[in-house]
C-alpha cells in the first residue's frame, strides 16, 4: 500500500470547501507533510480532518519575534505561527498558518476535536492566540503568576516576569457545578495525600457515585518553553530530560530527534539501538511500578511489593551501566553518552532472562486473581469512541481498542529493524489497562534481547552540526505513556528559539474525566493510577 493515501482525499475535500492549502517544504518537518493554510481556513480545515477520522496530535503556537520571518506574507509586525499535527495510519500532516501578533485570532479545532481543548487554552495563555468558537473560555495553564494580558512566550515578556511579590492562590477559578438535592462537591488538591504531583480535582457526587469530575492542572508550570529559549542543543536535552522525570529517556530522545532532523544529523546505528534499549528499559521500569501501584490501590499488597522489588533491581542495573537510576542525561545530540561494554552486555542478558522468569508467575497471579478481578474488571471503562474522540495513545488507547504505536506505525531507527508487538484490548477498563501494560513489559523484554542480538558496532555519537537559523524539526517518539511529539525551531548560532513537547497525557487527562463517570469516589485512586497522566508533562 502506498503511504499517505489519505492526503489526496483531504486535499480534495479542502478544495471542495474552497480552502487554499499550499504545500510547504516537506523536508523541513519530515517525516510529516506540511500544508500552509490561510488563517481564516484554520477552523474549517480541522472540521474536515475530523470528518475524515484523522487523529489530532496536538496544536502549538510559535511567536516568531520581531521582524518579518517569511517574505511572502502580508502580515506587518511580529507574527505568530500556529501549527497542528494530524495523523492517520502512521502518516503525519502538519497544518500551519500565520497570524499577526497584533490580532492573533483563529478558528478553534476543539468543537471537532475535544482532545485539543486544553492545548488551545495553553497556547492562548502563553502566546495570546485566541481561538474563536472554543467552547471553554476559561484560562488553563495560567493561574495568578502573570496577568491575562501578558503572554510569557512572546519576545517582549521578560523571563523573570513582571510581578515580584507573592503569587496568590487561584481561588476564583470558575468550576462547573452540578446543582440538585443530595449533590455535594469534593475538592481535592493541589497538595495530595500521597507522594504524587500536585493538581486539583473537583468531584460532584451524589452518594458514592461521581456525577462529574473536573481537573484543574497547571500547578507545576515551570516555564519550560520559556527557559528553553536561547539554550544550546546539549542544554535543551538536559531540560527535555526533566519535563517529566519518569519519561526522561523518551523526552530526551524526542528532543534529540527533532534537533537532529533540523540539523540534518544522523546518529550512528549503535547510538539509535542504545537509545531504544534505554527507552524500553524505561518502559519496563514504569510499567512494573504502576502495575504494582494499581494492585496496591485495591489492597493487593503482594503484587505491589513484588513489582517494587523488580523495579528497584532494574533501576540499580541502569545506575551501574548507564550512570543513573532513571537514565537521565544518557542522550546527547548526535548519539548517546554511554556505551555498552562486553560485561554490561552479558549482565543485561542475564537480567532479561531473570526478569522474564520472575514476571511469568507474578503476572499469572495478577492476571487471574479473584480479589483483583472483582475490583478491576468493569471499573473505569473508557469507551473506544471516547478514546478515539480524545486522541488517546499509549496503554490508555490500546486498552480501548486503539492499537496505534509510533514504533510500529511510523517507525524510527532502530524500530524499523525490529518487530514491534502492539498489544490491544477492547474492554477499556482498569483491568484492560493492566493487561496491556503486562503485555508491553513482555514485549519490551523480548525486544531488548533482539536489540542486543543485532547491536551494531561502531561510534556511539557523531558531532552535532550547527543548524541553520530558522531550521525546524519534529520529534515523534513512543514513550511509555504513548506518543510524545516534540517541536524545535532554531535561532541564530544554533540556539533554541522554540521548544514544545507534547505529552500523551494531554489526551488521557480528559479521558480520566470521562472514564470516572458513574464510578464511585473510592475507586478514583485506582482509576487515576491506571491512566497515570503526567502533571509535569502537561503543565510545562
Amino acid at each position, binding site marked *: 500500500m502506498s503511504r499517505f493515501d489519505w492526503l489526496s482525499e483531504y486535499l480534495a475535500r479542502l478544495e471542495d470547501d474552497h480552502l487554499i492549502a499550499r504545500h510547504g517544504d516537506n523536508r523541513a518537518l519530515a517525516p510529516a507533510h506540511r500544508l500552509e493554510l490561510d488563517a481564516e481556513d484554520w477552523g474549517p480545515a480541522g472540521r474536515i480532518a475530523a470528518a475524515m477520522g484523522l487523529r489530532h496530535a496536538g496544536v502549538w503556537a510559535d511567536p516568531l519575534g520581531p521582524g518579518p520571518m517569511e517574505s511572502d506574507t502580508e502580515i506587518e509586525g511580529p507574527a505568530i505561527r500556529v501549527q497542528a499535527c494530524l495523523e492517520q495510519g502512521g502518516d503525519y500532516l502538519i497544518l500551519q498558518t500565520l497570524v499577526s501578533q497584533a490580532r492573533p485570532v483563529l478558528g478553534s479545532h476543539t468543537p471537532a476535536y475535544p482532545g485539543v481543548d486544553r492545548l488551545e487554552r495553553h497556547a492562548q495563555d502563553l502566546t495570546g492566540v485566541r481561538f474563536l468558537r472554543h467552547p471553554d473560555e476559561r484560562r488553563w495553564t495560567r*493561574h*495568578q*503568576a502573570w496577568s491575562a494580558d501578558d503572554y*510569557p512566550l512572546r519576545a517582549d*515578556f*521578560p*523571563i*523573570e*516576569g513582571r510581578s515580584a511579590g*507573592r*503569587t*496568590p*492562590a*487561584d481561588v476564583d477559578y470558575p468550576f462547573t457545578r452540578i446543582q440538585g438535592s443530595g449533590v455535594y462537591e469534593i475538592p481535592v488538591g*493541589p*497538595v495530595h*495525600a*500521597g*507522594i*504524587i*504531583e*500536585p493538581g486539583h480535582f473537583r468531584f460532584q457526587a451524589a452518594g458514592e457515585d461521581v456525577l462529574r469530575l473536573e481537573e484543574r492542572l497547571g*500547578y*507545576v*508550570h*515551570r*516555564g519550560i518553553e*520559556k*527557559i528553553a529559549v536561547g539554550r544550546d542543543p546539549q542544554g535543551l536535552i538536559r*531540560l527535555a530530560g*526533566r519535563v*517529566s*522525570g*519518569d519519561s*526522561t529517556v523518551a523526552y530526551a530522545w524526542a528532543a534529540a530527534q527533532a534537533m537532529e532532523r533540523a540539523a540534518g544529523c544522523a546518529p550512528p546505528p549503535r547510538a539509535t539501538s542504545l537509545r531504544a534499549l534505554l527507552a524500553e528499559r524505561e518502559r519496563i521500569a514504569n510499567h512494573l*511500578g504502576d502495575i504494582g501501584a494499581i494492585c496496591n490501590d485495591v489492597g493487593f499488597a*503482594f503484587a505491589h*511489593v513484588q513489582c*517494587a*522489588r523488580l523495579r*528497584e533491581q532494574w*533501576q540499580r542495573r541502569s545506575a551501574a551501566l548507564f550512570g543513573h*537510576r*532513571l537514565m*537521565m542525561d544518557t542522550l546527547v545530540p548526535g548519539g548517546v553518552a554511554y556505551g555498552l561494554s562486553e560485561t554490561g552486555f552479558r549482565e543485561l542478558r542475564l537480567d532479561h532472562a531473570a526478569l522474564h522468569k520472575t514476571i511469568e*508467575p507474578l503476572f*499469572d*497471579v495478577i492476571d*487471574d*486473581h*479473584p480479589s483483583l*478481578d*472483582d475490583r478491576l*474488571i468493569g*471499573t473505569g471503562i473508557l469507551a473506544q469512541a471516547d478514546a478515539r474522540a480524545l486522541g488517546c495513545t499509549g496503554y490508555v488507547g490500546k486498552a480501548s481498542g486503539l492499537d496505534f504505536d509510533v514504533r510500529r506505525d511510523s517507525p524510527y531507527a532502530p524500530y524499523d529493524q525490529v518487530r514491534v508487538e502492539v498489544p490491544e484490548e477492547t474492554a477499556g477498563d482498569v483491568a484492560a489497562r493492566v493487561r496491556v501494560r503486562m503485555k508491553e513489559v513482555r514485549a519490551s523484554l523480548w525486544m531488548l534481547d533482539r536489540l542486543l542480538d543485532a547491536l551494531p558496532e561502531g561510534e556511539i555519537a557523531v558531532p552535532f552540526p550547527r543548524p541553520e537559523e530558522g531550521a525546524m524539526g519534529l520529534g515523534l517518539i513512543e514513550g511509555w505513556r504513548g506518543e510524545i511529539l516534540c517541536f524545535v525551531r532554531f535561532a541564530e548560532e544554533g540556539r533554541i528559539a522554540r521548544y514544545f513537547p507534547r505529552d500523551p497525557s494531554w489526551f488521557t487527562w480528559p479521558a480520566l474525566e470521562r472514564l470516572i463517570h458513574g*464510578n*464511585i469516589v473510592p475507586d478514583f485512586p485506582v482509576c487515576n493510577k491506571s491512566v497515570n497522566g*503526567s502533571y*509535569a508533562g502537561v*503543565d510545562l
Partner: protein
Amino acid sequence: MLFSEPRQAEGSWVSSPSRLAITLPYYYETRFSMFRILKQSLRTGVVTEAAPSHNDAELERLGIEVRRHIDARFGGSLAIRQVDAGSCNGCELEIHALNNPFYDVERFGIHFVASPRHADVLLVTGPVSRHMETALRRTWRATPSPKFVIAAGSCACDGGEIGVSYASCGTIENVIPVDVKIPGCPPSPVDLLKGLLGALEIDR
C-alpha cells in the same frame, strides 16, 4: 453497578448440587492462587538491606545540630508529609522507592502521612512553581510546630535546571525556611535515607 458479577455471593458450601458445581471451581481457583502467591513470596525471600553507614562525611555535613534538635523533639519517630512544589516527578519516584522492600524506611520509624497536620517533617521537592507558592506556604503553616523542612533534589536545593523565572520561585528556601538539604537529580533512595537517618540518628 460497576463490578463484574458478584462471585463471592455465588452461594455457600451447603447449597444445592448444581450450586456446588459453580462454587467449586471458584474455591479451588482461590486456593490455587493463594499457593502461587506463597510460592512467589517464599522464593523471593527477604531482600531488605542493612541501613547505610552513619559515619560518613555526608552525614557530618547534614549537621549534628539538626540531629540533636530532632531527637529531643520527635522521640525517634518521624512523620513525613511529602510536598511536590513543582518537581518533574523524578524525585517522587525515588521517594517512592524508599518504601520498597530494599529500603523499607518504616523499620526506622519513618512513615509518610497524608496530611501536614500529622507531620513532623515536610519533605519538599521541585523548584517552587509560582502556582504552588501559596499552597506550599499554607501546607507549611498547617504543619504543627516543632517542624522541620527537608529540601530534596537539585531544584529544591539550588534551583537545578529550572531556576528562578516568571513561573518559578527557585529554591524551597526562597519560600519557606529549610533545615536540611538533600541534593541530587534526583537524590537516590540511599541519599534520601542517609539524609533522613542522619536527621533522626537511629541507634542500632
